[in-house]
């Protein structure tokens, strides 16, 4: 059980850092500062942060920035990176055109 209000008090307010401008998610152009700030607004999981900021939601689906985001979030939460669960991977593993993905031998049902 995580008491969000208590945890927010524990980690303290968001403090600006000189490298906050740095792009972490290149596909969706999300900065380190946006991710750090989101944690202090109550978004503690990778799942929530990607839904809130779109980090890891672009073409590469977080394959580039996933680990970086995890590191940033764990530092803000003051926990080990292993305690932050990564985002779930879903099909398709690489972006694929609809026309090709549609060719699995089935037919559209009415």
């Amino acid at each position: 059980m995580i008491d969000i209000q208590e945890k927010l008090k524990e980690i303290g307010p968001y403090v600006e850092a000189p490298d906050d401008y740095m792009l972490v998610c290149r596909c969706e152009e999300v900065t380190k500062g946006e991710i750090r700030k989101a944690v202090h607004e109550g978004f503690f999981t990778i799942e929530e942060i990607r839904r809130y900021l779109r980090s890891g939601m672009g073409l590469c689906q977080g394959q580039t920035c996933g680990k970086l985001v995890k590191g940033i979030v764990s530092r803000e939460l003051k926990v080990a990176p292993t305690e932050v669960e990564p985002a779930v991977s879903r099909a398709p593993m690489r972006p694929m055109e609809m026309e090709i993905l549609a060719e699995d031998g089935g037919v559209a049902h009415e």
Partner: protein
Amino acid sequence: MSRVADTIIIGGGVVGCAAAYYLAKAGNSNVIVLEGTKSIGHGGSSRNGGGVRQSGRDVRELPYAMYGIKNLWPNLSEELGVDTEYTQKGNLRLGKTEEHLKKLNTLASNAQSVGLDVRMVDAKEVKEICPYLADDIIGASWCPTDGHANPLTTTLGYYKRSLEMGVKYYTDAPVKELRKIKGKVRQVVLNDGTVFEGESIILAAGYESREIARTVGVDIPMTRLIDEALVTEMQPHMFDIMLGTAGGDFYGHQAHHGSFVFGSDSGYEVVTDMKDPSAMETNSLTLSASCRAIMSYVPALKDAKIVRSWAGWLDNAFDGVPFISRVDEAPGLILACGFTGHGFGTAPAVGLMLSQMVAGEETVVDISALRYDRFKPIR
């Protein structure tokens, strides 16, 4: 740590978070929200296609669907301080056969009878509204006041704003049972034994509400159905309307950043079983079937790349409309579940009405048709 509040909300989805927000807005911020998983909006709240619709809805849902679209959605982004991406550019429900048109006509006349602006349009007008659609579409129903929004930011927006207003949230707090004290539902017990106590208990935990309500002898007649959705890479701007079909092949829209979000199925969903339902695994049949369905209505998207697909469970009420109701046998308990896939678009209105029910006020529209005890034996 205070485990007592005026109101305990079970379920940190869009309905629970919206109810918490409207309670706090009315000055009742002594509210605790319990989310069973680690993430707010983990279930259907973040997994739906983002429809904010009235057309095609049951006449029992329409009054509050319409109320929300008229009064709550327009200013929601400003209120929450989060961009909900609410877009009110209309909904086309497409038909390819005479049978489809007949179905659309019935839905349209039902909705017109409760005052909704929805009408039938022919193939030519369909093309005028959206030029990217297939040539074999022979007509559609058109509801200009329908639209779509971003379910992710809307759900998290209600959470963020209500958190700022002092609502207490607990995640990773799965509920085991409710307990009555002197005949009134007062206590909420977690799996780990922690006890929360409140004057009013709102149960908004999707399908899981059934098991929780059962602990005080209340059975909510609903079943669980899996559904899938997908998202494409960013595309050039094509259209702002919401799409659906009479045959239920797919629904969806283009989101503000350019991706298309579509929901569809393969036909296997009704018999889908899963060892661990919380895993919400996607089915290998569905994604391909979805692509075929979408391309047969929006052929221009054949080269759009899919970047992700996902699944979620619907809490399907036995008669297709939710249970938003106090419970005679369990005073203190307020049900808000069984949304049958319509929960996102109506969440602002439902959240507001739940806050009114807690305060003992009359709800903005009459919802007596959504009582929990409407099920009657057929013989």
